[in-house]
């Protein structure tokens, strides 16, 4: 049964990934990305990562994909885009580098296996309470400093996003000056 679910979801994930890079319309790319992200959540569930799977659905599949779709519609770039490539060697080189990258990853993970001491974070499941509590215990004890830093990171990202998204050096109500595209 596990194998059945895995292969179905693996095919869906690969189809979604190919769809992202082959779709001419950015909206279709975003929806293919959604497919891959949801199958990824299934993989997380199959590997005893319940909390991460739910966060994947809530944060990635909802928030991030919706943000992508918002920006696509806001900018109005949802028309068909030409996939013609002006540089002759760009595509073959990209595929060659991709194959090289894949070979490197396989060579690294095929010849080595992670060994050594386990981290101090503990096993995957608490004895009676399960995976969510195990993640929470680790997050709020071993990784508390990193967790606090993420708060700072998110604040900086939000402030930076607001600063970048409003027109620079312009107050509300001022007329829009046409900027030259030199």
């Amino acid at each position, binding site marked *: 049964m596990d194998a059945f679910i895995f292969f179905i979801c693996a095919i869906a994930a690969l189809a979604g990934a190919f769809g992202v890079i082959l779709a001419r319309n950015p909206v279709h790319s975003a929806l293919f990305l959604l497919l891959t992200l949801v199958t990824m959540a299934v993989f997380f569930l199959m590997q005893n990562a319940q909390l991460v799977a739910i966060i994947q659905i809530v944060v990635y599949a909802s928030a991030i994909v919706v943000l992508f779709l918002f*920006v696509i519609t806001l900018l109005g770039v949802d028309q068909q885009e030409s996939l013609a490539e002006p540089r002759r060697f760009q595509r073959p080189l990209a595929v060659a*580098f991709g194959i090289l990258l894949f070979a490197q990853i396989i060579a690294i993970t095929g010849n080595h296996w992670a060994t050594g001491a386990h981290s101090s974070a503990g096993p995957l499941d608490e004895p009676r309470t399960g995976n969510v509590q195990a993640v929470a215990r680790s997050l709020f004890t071993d990784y508390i400093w990193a967790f606090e830093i993420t708060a700072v990171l998110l604040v900086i990202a939000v402030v930076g996003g607001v600063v970048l998204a409003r027109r620079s050096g312009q107050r509300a109500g001022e007329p829009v000056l046409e900027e030259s595209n030199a």
Partner: protein
Amino acid sequence: VTAPDITPTYYLILASILFTIGGVGLLVRKNTLVMFMCIELMLNAANLTFVAYAKALNDISGQVIVFFTLVVAAAEVAVGLAIIVAIFRRRQDVTADDVDLLKG
């Protein structure tokens, strides 16, 4: 035919394929939004690797790191999309080929 046991190796191979597809897409596509989606794809492949190793080694810290990766990805999307909006305001286009002011 008996179904094979799904070992962590299956997940690692799938993750490496997804990572490669994301990397090739990043090189091939010209629309900055789609390039961004390819980066998300690569981040997700890395997350799958972390979760697979967490399962294989029975160690929770792999999943905690995935949690942090998700936070960083969310922050990255917020800032990156704001940058794309700013570029679009200036150039009315989001094609990477046209943003070549730094070209020598």
